[in-house]
């Protein structure tokens, strides 16, 4: 009999108050026992909980300004859905939303497999010092700011003396101005994102690979599996839960196409192709002071992000049997 069945059975015989009191006392006692036993861990956890409360949950309440006209000198004026109406009737907003969706989809499709492949390849490197060197080299870009990365790529992609166009020139291909080419700039965003983050993101997959039971590899070896077969039949299935979890979590940040990256790699020619919701919110909210309108845009993006998490969760549940809850 399950706990729930027991409760229902108890309530049917009419002794609910006594059971409820006992249950409550039991919970309190269990909590007290837990606290006595685990208090150092609760204390260690407290700063983390506090951080999320202060910086992630309390600000949710402030999103109410999306429904108000902000006054620098209070009180704000309630305007209902006015800002959302303005937003949805603006052609610029739909353009930036379309840009965001396109760039985010490109990043998700082309970026997601790269750290997995990198982790699989790193796992196959046998020399300890060589592996450490490669790991350090591919993690390094993660610590560079977008200002630096933009400088590096603008120089590397220069049509006059950039390394990329020099290489293309050796292959007989005419130089191309990638940074001012409206057809190429979104690919520049995807590539720079991969260059910066693939190495770092591979760390999680590498940790998952290391956690796979060695006996599975031994068994596969006994069965005569070669390296490729071991990757395909042991390693990949072993990291599917990690891939699924990261995919779902990334889906929540799907519309975060990276404000810093876009601002630093943008210029007058390509702005219309890479102007995203975040740059729009920054421009409208902070630069022109339309805080309510910018909050409405941000809130809309957050709602879409939440929906993405839910959808990704159910898709993952159906395909892999794994989800985030």
């Amino acid at each position, binding site marked *: 009999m399950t706990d729930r069945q027991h409760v229902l059975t108890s309530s049917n015989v009419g002794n609910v108050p006594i059971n409820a009191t006992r249950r409550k006392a039991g919970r309190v006692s269990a909590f007290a026992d837990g606290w006595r036993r685990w208090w150092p861990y609760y204390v260690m956890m407290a700063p983390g909980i506090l951080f999320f409360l202060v910086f992630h949950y309390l600000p949710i309440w402030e999103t109410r300004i999306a429904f108000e006209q902000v006054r*620098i000198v209070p009180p704000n004026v309630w305007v209902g859905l006015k800002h959302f109406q303005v937003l949805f009737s603006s052609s610029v907003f739909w353009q930036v939303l379309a840009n965001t969706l396109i760039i985010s989809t490109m990043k998700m499709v082309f970026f997601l497999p790269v750290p997995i492949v990198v982790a699989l390849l790193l796992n196959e490197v046998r020399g300890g010092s060589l592996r450490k060197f490669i790991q350090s080299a591919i993690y390094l870009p993660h610590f560079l700011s977008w200002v630096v990365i933009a400088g590096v790529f603008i120089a590397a992609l220069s049509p006059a003396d950039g390394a990329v166009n020099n290489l293309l020139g050796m292959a007989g291909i005419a130089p191309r101005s990638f940074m001012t080419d409206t057809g190429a700039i979104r690919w520049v965003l995807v590539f720079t994102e991969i260059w910066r983050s693939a190495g770092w993101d591979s760390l999680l997959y590498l940790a998952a690979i290391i956690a796979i039971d060695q006996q599975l590899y031994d068994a596969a070896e006994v069965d005569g599996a070669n390296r490729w077969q071991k990757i395909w039949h042991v390693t990949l299935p072993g990291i599917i839960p990690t891939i699924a979890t990261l995919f779902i979590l990334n889906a929540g940040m799907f519309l975060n196409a990276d404000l810093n990256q876009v601002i630093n790699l943008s210029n007058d*020619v390509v*702005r219309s192709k890479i102007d995203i919701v975040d740059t729009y919110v920054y421009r409208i909210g902070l630069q022109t*002071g339309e805080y309510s309108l910018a909050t409405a845009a941000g809130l809309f993006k957050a709602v879409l992000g939440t929906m993405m998490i839910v959808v990704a969760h159910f898709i993952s549940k159906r395909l892999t049997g794994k989800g985030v809850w």
Partner: protein
Amino acid sequence: MLRKLVLTTSTALALCLGITVPAMADPIKFRIVSKDFGPTNPDDVKHLQRIEEALKAQGTDLDIELVDLPSSGYADKLSVMLLSGDIPDLIYFQGGDAKMVEQGVLEDLGPMIADTTYLKDALWPHNVERLKNYPYLLYVYPVRGPQPVIRKDWLEKTGLKAPETVEDYVTLFKAIKDDDLDGNGVADTYGVTTADNTNELDSIFNQAFGITGTWMKNPAGEWVSARITSQEKDKIAFYASLRAQGLYDPEYITTKFDVKEDKFYTGKAGVIFGSSGEVIDIYGGKMRQVHPGTELVLLAPPKGPGGQGLSAVDVSKESRGFAISTTSEHKAEVMKLLDFMASPQGQMFDRLGFEGQEFTKEGDTYKVTDKIATWYARFMVAANWTPPVVWQSEAAQQSLATIQKDFKPDNTFVWPADYAADLDATENVYRSWVFKFISGAATLDQWDQYVAEWEAAGGTRLNDYARTVLDAKK
């Protein structure tokens, strides 16, 4: 007896206290938030202390608090600070002020400035115009405008005199490109480079091509944006020809300010633009670090088919500056501080720094030290005060003289918030087409296509509104 003594003593004490309380009154406290002027810089703190002491000696006892706001991303951080309801008495804006004015948070400075002793006479001509149009921001500094500079030794190597006409500029740019002035064996130096867009070139070529202001009359006598006029078309064609001859850096659009400077110091570009005398001196200093003994020469705006001079100066409003909040309880005291900073004593403090640190004085002779290079005025550079010692280079002084001589007010105005989207969209259309024309991705035969796109992006609405404003000024 004892009772009498106690009564007398206590009465005397009470009287003394009554007399002395006003003299011992607490100083008036107010707060300032400004960029590159904060409580973590010891120089800033010392500077403020001596200002307080000087004002106290004049009978104004102030206790001024500097708000600590990082300089990086200052405008954004200030915006968030004000939105949270934290509004200091004196606020330095670098944009974002219009929204505050719209909500009545900033004081009209006009009447207050009129009542000052020094400040009203310390204004530059452009300050006076801007305050008439937008009396909420005060930025008492010489007008800024990009002016071109070249290495003196390079100009001498070309054997050319400083350019005076548009054709002279082309000749100079060609010489820079062809004469291998950097001596690397390759003719790979651009005549000129700019950062981000063509604004810097416009500053000397607008007038030369007859672009006299942001708004001009079309052949039908109607006001239209200068950006869709035949004069603009001629100017863009000129820029395109410079690019086609390899004289204008084709990568200007991805060139940031630091990269622009780097191209200048490393000999990849012969001419760049400095936005003020101070900036030109910074260029000169950095150039000497790479090429010791090198001086910079300021080049004058060229004479062209449409005229000569630096481009017209926007006087619709200050783009940055100090504002007093309407919520301040000490507006008069804040204005006293600003008035003091415009006085000779305030200017000595603000412009020259500290004696023994930024300058030395022997008798009546002042000498600046190397540290003057890192000192800057925290409040203002009064138009009517001349420092007792000159430390700027000849090029920097000339730039100031030129911009004062060439000052022409532009006819642009402050836009209502409703036009923000149109301004943003038309700006994007203009900038992307200018690059297409210059890079050769589009030809000038497509000019009408550009104009149609500009008008469709909101330009027609802008033209219509401009006509109502400018016609009403007649």
